[in-house]
């Protein structure tokens, strides 16, 4: 396909010299006399430019940026599906966007209802018993889950002994990072040759020191952990808790659930599964759900309903407290509510089925050209390797972006060499899947020299990342002239 990204030699904001034109209504008063001595700021070194210059600047920058609305984004584990426009419209309604979080309950019944309904939705989708909406991203949800593990251990007198959290070697990096943040030691278990958790190794790792096992199912290899029931039993028999990383939930909605599989704690990535826009890397939202016996440890407030009105529920005395200051990323929660309401039970399951069909189609198409280390039926994503082609995954990625398609996630999971982790999602049609696969196939045939010079069609060519790390120019004032 032919593609060329917009290219501007766009200045930095501080290189504009047009002068600010911003006006405010401007009541008058003598602020200077009120500012305590020594507290008056003299220099305010911000760029001064006209509004039109600022708008041109950011509009040009936007044209040098790829997004879902420009084409497919098969970035494995990130679940970049289409973000429906009705959700944006609802989020921009003044009755939601201008609410203050400290407004009294009687003035905020609408927002409280949205959150209550979302809690109920998430319970029914996951077959868990109670939900907090407070965590602000998937990793924040993981950390919340870890704090719940801590509180449970403390409450049951085991915090002194259960100091280890087990994660598979295919886990997202956030899992070990969140576990370590919560003060636990991380124990890694390997995957077996089929990409499943090595049960023997898991048995050896589990002990009276184990606090929890964190897993993703389907895994980051796109494979369903078929031994999950046995794993749940092993973990529970060892007296530990089982944590579900919900990053890959999109593949199984309506087909199975973490509650049925035997998990104790789950986080959801609303921005993935329920298609809220990712905004260049955030905001997200990472609600957490738990089984009944852990409900009392959830952060407060949760949203309750007494049959007549919605209220903020602070009643839990054993709560971990707060993980963020208010109710969570309400604007994101609202969009997820809209998405779930629109799709309903039938649509959510259909989306999962279609996502899995698309993945297997891509997997089958590409496994003739790239190696498929684990084979078999895939779920939401497929991890292939470019090792067989002699080309680096990075170089194939640059060929793809040069042709107007976002590249898969590369070099993850860490256990696959030259990994390309592809997640097409349900919102891509066959034509786009074919075009994507053909571009990858072209890349494998393009030849080493051709790949090395890519990208040629983007606003910049291959970027020197080593220089960035060495020079550490992290603000414009650190620029060397």
């Amino acid at each position, binding site marked *: 396909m032919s593609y060329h990204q917009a290219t501007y030699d766009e200045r930095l904001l501080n290189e504009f010299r047009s002068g600010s034109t911003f006006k405010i*209504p401007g009541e008058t008063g003598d602020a200077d006399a009120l500012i305590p001595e020594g507290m008056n700021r003299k220099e305010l070194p911000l760029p001064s430019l006209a509004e039109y210059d600022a*708008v041109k600047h950011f509009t040009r920058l936007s044209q040098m940026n790829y997004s879902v609305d420009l084409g497919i984004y098969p970035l494995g584990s990130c679940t970049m599906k289409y973000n429906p426009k009705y959700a944006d419209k609802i989020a921009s309604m003044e009755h939601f966007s201008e609410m203050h979080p400290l407004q009294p309950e009687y003035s905020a019944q609408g927002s409280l209802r949205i959150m209550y309904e979302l809690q109920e939705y998430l319970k*029914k989708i996951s077959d868990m018993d109670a939900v907090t909406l407070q965590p602000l991203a998937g990793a924040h949800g993981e950390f919340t889950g870890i704090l719940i593990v801590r509180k449970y251990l403390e409450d049951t007198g085991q915090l002194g002994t259960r100091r280890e959290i087990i994660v598979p070697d295919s886990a997202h990096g956030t899992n070990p990072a969140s576990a370590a943040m919560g003060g636990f030691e991380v124990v890694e278990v390997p995957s077996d040759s089929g990409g499943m958790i090595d049960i023997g190794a898991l048995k050896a790792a589990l002990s009276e020191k184990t606090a929890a096992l964190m897993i993703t199912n389907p895994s980051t290899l796109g494979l369903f952990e078929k031994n999950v029931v046995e794993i749940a039993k092993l973990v529970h028999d060892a007296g530990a808790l089982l944590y579900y990383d919900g990053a890959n939930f999109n593949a199984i909605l309506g087909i199975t659930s973490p509650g049925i599989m035997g998990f104790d704690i789950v986080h959801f990535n609303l921005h993935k599964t329920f298609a809220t826009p990712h905004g260049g890397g955030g905001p997200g939202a990472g609600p957490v759900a738990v089984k009944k016996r852990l409900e009392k440890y959830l952060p407060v407030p949760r949203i309750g309903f007494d049959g007549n009105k919605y209220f903020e529920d602070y009643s839990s005395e054993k709560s971990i407290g707060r993980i*963020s*200051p208010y109710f969570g990323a309400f604007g994101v929660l*609202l969009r997820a509510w809209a998405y779930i309401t629109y799709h309903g039970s039938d649509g959510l399951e259909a989306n999962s089925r*279609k996502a899995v069909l698309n993945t297997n189609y891509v997997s089958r198409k590409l496994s003739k050209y790239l190696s498929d280390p684990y084979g078999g039926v895939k779920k939401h994503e497929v991890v292939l390797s470019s090792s067989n082609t002699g080309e680096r995954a990075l170089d194939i990625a640059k060929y793809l972006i040069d042709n107007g398609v976002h590249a898969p996630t590369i070099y993850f999971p860490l256990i696959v060499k030259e990994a390309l982790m592809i997640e097409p999602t349900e919102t891509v049609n066959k034509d786009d899947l074919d075009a994507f696969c053909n571009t990858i196939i072209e890349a494998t045939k393009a030849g080493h020299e051709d790949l090395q010079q890519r990208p040629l069609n983007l606003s910049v060519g291959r970027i020197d990342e080593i220089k960035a790390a060495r020079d550490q120019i992290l603000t414009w004032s650190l620029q060397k002239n």
Partner: protein
Amino acid sequence: MKGRKTITDKPKISTYDVTPEVDILPDENSAMMDFIGIKSDNELFSDIPSAIRKRGISINKGMSEYEVVKLAEEIGSANSIDNYTNFMGCGIYDRIIPSAVDSIIGRTEFLTSYTPYQAEFSQGMLQSLFEYQSLISDLMGMDMTNSSIYDGATALGEAVRMAHRINEKTEILIPENIYRSKMDVIHSYSAGLNLKFVTYSFEKGTGYLDLNDLSSKISANTSAIICENPNSFGIIDPNVTKIQEIKGDALLISYVDPISLGTVVPPGSYGADISVAEGQQLGIHRQFGGPLLGLFSFRKEYLRKSPGRIIGMTSDTKGKRAFVMTIQTREQHIRREKATSNICTNQALMALASAVYLSVVGPDGLRKIAKVTISQAKKLRDAVSGIRGYDARILSGTSFSDVLVKMPKNPADVQKALYSRGILGPVPSSALFSEVKGLGNTAFFSVTEKTTDAMIKHLVDSLGAIQ
């Protein structure tokens, strides 16, 4: 329809017919299934044991776009916001948002993009975030800023962790009037560390932090001192600038109001090592408290110990200026359990909003906004103090946005009575503090540059009428 295969056990409609946002052609699915070599998509789920199969989701069936928008409007109408005069602040403020901000962050090239893992494809977001890092560093008077944290409270939590990483000491000094919500978040963030929190007090008359009390609590074990300016009483506190003289080896973490920095000295000028703030006021709608924006700045010698994502300037193979995520060896996807934080998704779009805000408002605009805020706070303070039973002069320090008012009765009752007169506010002190004693019936009315003299008169008239 011709050529469709049975793809679920529900016979009447194909599951895919209800995937509404893309046109799914049954023939296309058939072709894909043929290619894979399956007759039903159920074969793709044969790896999920029947014992753990779910029988559908027990929520409503899907609805049309028209219906979901109507439903949201109906639910939203149970929220009170339009036609209400707002005096609620205490961390989240109703400030003027230049139209350009929503216009730019609504551009789908930004809104629907993802973390710029492929830098050459994502220069727009990367340059914007580099500019954000630069703008916030200059606003704070600090060397460096990461490309965002979830919100001000979690930024404070990360700052405490970072201070402990830097000097491995275990005591954190905290103002006793810090909001309970922030303190709870700090506690959550430090649950895995063996830290001790010690509070220091405030002067009764001025509302300034008590330097003597603070000084007496600094020890060889002090990792960091947290200070706030304006502080949680809403007061611009000149004593924060004196902490550097007494802090010794301890690090200084300052929590500031970014709008106040339009006219109040920045934390970099009084020796802050880490500066954090809630960035909501920089062009972000209140949204019932989220998403927000955590500003996180620090001195350059602590770069390797800092949390979160950082964008750096470099060049491409032809020497053209380019931007890329850098210093990633601190991050979770590389360092896993040894990472400086677990942050993955951050608040990139909100960071962009604040960059657009600051570039449209400019230094003169920000100065004006800050000054009007201070003078409106003074007007409100004087006007409310003229009402029998109300006193807004219990602290002599200058209020920035939040004005502490003593009331003749329970603030929640005042709040309810004002609500019936179309006013939102005040925020009762009891909702904010847990450590401060003796505040009795006090609450905060908050102003911004949107607060007109007429609004203050409306408040005063209403307070007079509800006595």
